Structures are given as structure tokens and as C-alpha cells.
């Protein structure tokens, strides 16, 4: 069982790092875009709200695999020079951003109107109130759902490796090893362990964040 792992250690290791880079980059895209879209959805302007709503509906309701096809094959066909990394990170990041935006929006609604009025009454503008009072509380409130979304994102990253982008991530490397060794069960067992390490780390990280930043009300 361990001989497959030791013999093909370079493949497993490089696959692990590729997945790491994919998920870290996608996570950053998801958080930044998700925050922006959430801000749009709660903005005082109706058109910004609609734009935010449209984003969520599109990216949440199209399968990730289809987004990957469009962003890579589709755009290349349209003469856009996009690499597999960019296409993969953009697809996974923008897809997850739709869920992040929805989670944040629910967090924003958990911040009472009085909190906002207290801030306005001290001379803060609406934008400053959002930045200093509403969003910090919203983020703290939605740490648990963001944790679930991050874990889902890590697992979803496997689709990138088996799609036509063929980035050499954990799953792609496992398939290469499997094709050479025909040790199907053992190979994919180690691939599963790779994902469990990442999702386990995310779980611990979010548990820590939750403890550190939870708000007593």
C-alpha cells in the first residue's frame, strides 16, 4: 500500500501542490468578488442590486464543469488567449464567489438597523458604516458557512484536473499513477487522503477563526 505512495511520491507531491495553489488562488478570487457582489446586492442603488443578483443567478445556476468549458475552450475558440490556470482559477473562484456573496448577504441582514443608525448618528458616511460596522460583523457571523463553502470549493477543484484543462492536480496525477501501476484502489485512496488533508486543514482554520472572532451579542 505504501510502496505506491513512496514510488510515485514526486507525482503525488506535485499534484498536492498544484491543488494547493489552485484552491488558494480560487479562494482569494471568491472572497474578493463575493464581497463586492454582496456589497452590490445591499447597495442603495437598484441597478447595482440587480447586477449583483444577476451575478449570483448566473454563476450559481451554471454547472462548474460548463463554466470550465466556456472559460477555456469557449474563450480560446473566440481567440482569447487564456491558459488553463487562469481559466481554472477564474471558473472555480467566480463560481464559489456567488455562494460567498449569498452567505455574506445573510450575514449583513443579521446586523441590526440600530447598529447602522448608531454609526450614522456619529457622523460616519454610509460607505464607512458598511466598512467599519456592518461588514466586520457580517464576516464574523458567516464564518461557519464560509467554512463549508471553502470545503466544497476544495472538493470541487478536482473537477479541474479531470476536465479538458488537465491541470496536474491531485486527481490528475493519481490517474497518471493508476494508468502506470493499475493499482486503482490504492492510488485513489492516496488521492482521497490528499484531499482530506486539505479539507481537514480548512476545517481547523475556520474553527480557529470562529473561536477567535465570534461575537457575543
Amino acid at each position: 500500500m505504501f510502496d505506491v505512495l513512496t514510488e510515485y511520491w514526486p507525482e503525488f507531491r506535485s499534484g498536492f501542490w498544484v491543488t494547493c495553489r489552485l484552491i488558494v488562488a480560487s479562494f482569494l478570487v471568491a472572497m474578493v468578488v463575493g464581497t463586492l457582489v454582496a456589497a452590490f446586492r445591499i447597495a442603495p442603488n437598484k441597478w447595482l442590486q440587480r447586477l449583483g443578483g444577476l451575478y449570483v443567478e448566473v454563476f450559481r445556476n451554471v454547472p462548474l464543469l460548463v463554466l470550465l468549458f466556456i472559460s477555456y475552450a469557449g474563450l480560446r475558440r473566440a481567440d482569447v488567449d487564456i491558459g488553463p490556470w487562469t481559466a481554472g482559477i477564474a471558473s472555480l473562484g467566480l463560481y464559489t464567489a456567488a455562494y460567498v456573496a449569498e452567505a455574506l448577504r445573510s450575514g449583513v441582514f443579521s446586523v441590526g438597523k440600530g447598529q447602522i443608525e448608531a454609526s450614522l448618528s456619529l457622523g460616519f458616511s454610509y460607505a464607512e458604516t458598511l466598512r467599519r460596522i456592518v461588514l466586520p460583523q457580517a464576516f464574523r457571523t458567516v464564518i461557519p458557512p464560509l467554512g463549508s463553502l471553502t470545503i466544497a470549493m476544495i472538493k470541487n477543484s478536482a473537477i479541474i484536473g479531470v476536465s479538458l484543462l488537465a491541470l496536474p492536480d491531485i486527481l490528475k496525477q493519481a490517474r497518471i499513477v493508476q494508468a502506470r501501476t493499475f493499482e486503482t484502489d490504492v492510488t485513489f485512496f492516496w488521492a482521497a487522503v490528499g484531499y482530506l488533508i486539505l479539507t481537514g486543514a480548512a476545517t481547523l482554520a475556520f474553527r480557529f477563526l470562529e473561536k477567535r472572532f465570534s461575537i457575543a451579542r
Partner: protein
Amino acid sequence: MSDQNLVELRGIHKAFGDNVVLAGVDLSVARGEVIVIAGPSGSGKSTMLRCVNGLETADRGEITFDGRPVKPGKGLASLRAEIGFVFQQFHLWPHMSVLDNIALAPVKVKGVARDAARQRAEELLTRVGIAEKAHQFPAELSGGQQQRVAIARALAMDPKLMLFDEPTSALDPEMIREVLDVMRDLAREGMTMLVVTHEMGFAREVCDRLVFIDGGLIVEEGPPAEFFANAQSERAREFVDKIIHH
């Protein structure tokens, strides 16, 4: 300039849908004056107070603060920075320590140096009697303590006017006193105050003028002693009877 009234309300109308809450209110507030606004629930007291710092916008009428119009737009935030508002439910920010609750606006709105603002915050906490709570979070404090922090937060901006919207109505009886004491001291130091409250003991002892509102109109106003002894209108007499004999 300084003999001009600090606040002027002229013909303030406000309705929420079909429900007329203010039906033409006029009120002048002199500098240093302490006014208690009393009246039955739903009479429009809180709405009037919220119009003064623009948390509500009047449908008709004019409000000026320190000679400047209170109206939606760019200048409103800087006016609000000069008007303290204390809410019934305190509305402290739960994700910050007590000290940060007080020091945030001076630093970010007025540009006071961080250390100076924190030192001032500690002085204010001493003044409202809870210096030892500086590094705790709002949820760890009792209601009365939270309300005193909320008063300190408003005072940290060095306001020219303090608005109190039923500051003791959400408090247990034994905590009402500690909040009223802070307000009493503030009045003695010459702060201009508009106080919506049902605490008629406080009104009798502290305020210069009692304004009685009913049905969205100022029905009667005058020195508190006079109001309690012989209110002119039927509705005010009923109110006094209920308050005193409850």
C-alpha cells in the same frame, strides 16, 4: 451668532404611509436648554427627535441646527458629528471593546490622534462611572452600563447637542437611576439636551421646559412644575394623572 437658538423646527410634518406621525411641529431650543419631550406612545416624540439629526427626513418643514439646515445630502454627516444620539437599545457595536466603541468615531470621523482619543475615552468612562470596563465587550456589561457607554460614545465627539430617545425604557428599574444620574450631571454642566422619556421625576428635577406631544402636535409646553401642577389641556391633564397615579 451665539444668541441664536441651537435648534429650530418649523412646521415639521411626517407620515409613514397613511399614518401621520407629526402634523406640524414648531420648536426652538436655546443653547444650554434641557427639554423633556413627553407624551403617550405613538405620539411622535421619537420621530421628532430622529428628525433633528436626520435619521428621519421630514416630509414638510424645516429644521436648522446651529444655523445650518438639516437635510439629506453631503453636509448631513458633519452635522451629525456635532449631535450626540442615545438610543433606547444602546446599539453599541458588539465586535469592539468598550474603549474602541468610544474612540472609533473621534479617530475616524474627526481625525483625532488614536492615543488622544483612547485617553479621552478612558476619561469619559471614569466620568460615567465604569472606568474598569474599558477593555470588556458590550455583551459583558449590564444594560445600565451599556447605556452609560453609549452616552460616553456620543460625548466623545464633543457634541453641541445631545438627543436621548427613551434612554431608560429598556432598563431594569435598578439600573435606571445610574443612567439618569449621568444625564443629570450632563445637564448641570450646561449641555443642550432633548430628552424623550417617561421619567417624570427626572423631568421635574432637571429640565427647563417640558414639551407635551400628542397626535403629532405640541399640545402644551412650559416649566415642568407648572405642567404637573396645572396642565391646561384635557389631554395633558389625563397624561399627568396616569403618570403620577400609576
